[in-house]
């Protein structure tokens, strides 16, 4: 196993390479506001991050990643365009697998650039591929933006689209909602009974709690509106199903998705972006003919990514977490920017795992 100073040395070397690519070194604090992280990730973050507190600042978290503080720093006082690199510890609670590290070093690279998103995507990916050259890794890519565009362009109510968007990152729940909206699963009995009641608000129990009667009435109205919304069409459902199943090398995936766009024309702008990205990757010498593309990739683990996503995996070590991951997170800059926003893409590498794989290969 590589020791700490070997990992540090490798991290420093990798950071220097990112500096050579034009990045400025940043060093965000270890303690992050728990409130911001909770706002962003929800309660699930408590299972992944260590929480501590004091009486003055309240709850703080040991940084579970760098992206959030780097975005906050950039939105506060960054110049444009900007490239940042960093290396340092992140901390992750582990409750299920004692073999997974709860503290490890990440080296990252983030690009904030308005002018050429395809170029920035390709720049990040190809710099990562370069850092990882020679290791027996498999690269996976995807694009959350295509699924997002497909959902937002569905011919159904805004209410349904919002519900689907909210659960885009929970594939099982997303599927259950989709099946219900398509009329493939019946409305639950209790709901039909509620809506059929002469006075659905009638209740023997007293009104308690902060959720007021008006909010309950509003939900009943929303349920009624939903009942009267026609199902999502079979054509659109078929399109979504084939879209979610796309898993091919990049050029074939694009071709396949263009066919799907006949039924789901709303994804065409996102496909144009994919096409531009493929060209930009090719221009940087990436062999796109061998690069995998999965339309569902990144849906379970990468909650803030909303466009291009990628990961590098050790082919012979399925027990290891990804060696590197990254993607585009335009929406995150919007949420943290107080009105401002900027397209952003970046990712992180794990020098400890890289050294472990190298040692095993010798």
């Amino acid at each position, binding site marked *: 196993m590589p020791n700490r100073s070997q990992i540090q040395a490798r991290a420093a070397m990798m950071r220097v390479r990112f500096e050579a690519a034009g990045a400025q070194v940043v060093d965000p604090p270890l303690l992050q506001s728990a409130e911001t992280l909770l706002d962003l990730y*929800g*309660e699930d973050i408590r299972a992944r991050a260590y929480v501590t507190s004091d009486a003055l600042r309240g709850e703080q978290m040991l940084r579970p990643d760098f992206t959030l503080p780097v975005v906050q720093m950039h939105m506060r006082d960054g110049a444009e365009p900007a490239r940042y690199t960093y290396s340092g510890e992140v901390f992750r609670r582990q409750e299920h697998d004692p073999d997974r590290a709860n503290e490890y070093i990440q080296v990252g690279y983030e690009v904030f650039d308005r002018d050429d998103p395809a170029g920035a995507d390709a720049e990040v990916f190809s710099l990562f591929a370069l850092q990882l050259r020679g290791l027996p890794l498999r690269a996976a890519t995807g694009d959350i933006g295509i699924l997002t565009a497909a959902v937002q362009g569905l011919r159904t109510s805004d209410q349904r689209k919002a519900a689907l968007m909210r659960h885009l990152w929970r594939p099982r729940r997303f599927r*259950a909602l989709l099946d219900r909206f398509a009329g493939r699963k019946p409305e639950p009995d209790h*709901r039909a009974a509620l809506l059929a009641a002469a006075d659905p608000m009638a*209740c023997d129990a007293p*009104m308690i709690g*902060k959720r007021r*009667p008006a909010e309950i009435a509003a939900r009943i109205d*929303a349920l009624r509106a939903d009942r009267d919304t026609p199902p999502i069409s079979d054509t659109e459902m078929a399109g979504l199903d084939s879209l979610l199943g796309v898993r091919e090398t990049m050029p074939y995936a694009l071709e396949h998705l263009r066919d799907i766009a006949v039924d789901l024309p709303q994804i065409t702008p996102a496909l144009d972006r994919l096409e531009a990205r493929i060209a930009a990757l090719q221009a940087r010498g990436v062999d796109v003919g061998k690069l995998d593309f999965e339309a569902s990739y990144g849906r379970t683990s990468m909650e803030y990514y909303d466009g291009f996503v990628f990961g590098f995996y050790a082919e012979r070590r399925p027990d290891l977490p990804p060696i590197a991951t990254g993607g585009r997170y335009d929406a995150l800059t919007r949420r943290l920017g107080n009105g401002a926003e900027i397209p952003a893409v970046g990712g992180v590498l794990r020098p400890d795992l890289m050294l472990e794989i190298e040692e095993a290969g010798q």
Partner: protein
Amino acid sequence: MTLKLGVPSKGRLMEKTFAWFARHGIELSRAGSDREYAGKVDGIEDVSLILLSAGEIPRELAAGRIHLGVTGTDLVHEKLPRWEQQVEEIAPLGFGQADLVIAVPACWVDVETLDDLDAAAAAFRATHGHRLRIATKYHRLVREFLTDSGVADYTLVDSQGATEGTVMNETAEAIADITSTGETLRANHLKILSDGLILQSQATLWRSRVAEYGAAEKAALAEVMRRLG
């Protein structure tokens, strides 16, 4: 050395545990006065009784400081991650039954299932600017259950007692707590979600997988197991 048996130190749980062991020919009792937390074991060799708070028994088992312990399934599952690797379930004791459930105000006519709770949470957050609060002391179990069920936009707030009252006091919108008859929930105008059962718990005898077992402890354990049949 002796085989150490941890038993809840107070109340009905202790009495019922003593009675259960007595039925198997193992006489447990408090040494000295009612206030003294030392125990006495008759009818079997090389077993010692340690009286502990029920909440501490999972930790003591996981640390290997006791070999056997009686406590609820809920506490073992909540306090010990990967509990199967640290303790082994020997026998359910047939009392102390309680369900860990999610309950919401009975006046929420539109919320019967987790799916409804999720939708209500989304709207609640948009209206009030904070996530829907669920009061509980079972943080890990509840979070894992809700994550698995695809519920979002909630937050857990810690409540170590009188959890049913938090909704009325507006410090939480819903609760996750143990209930045996549902009486306290009803009295506080709460109802259980139809798919809101997280765990069925009862008092259970556990064996520590990490404690050290010398010759005497092994013999005593074999004898306990023989008595339990």
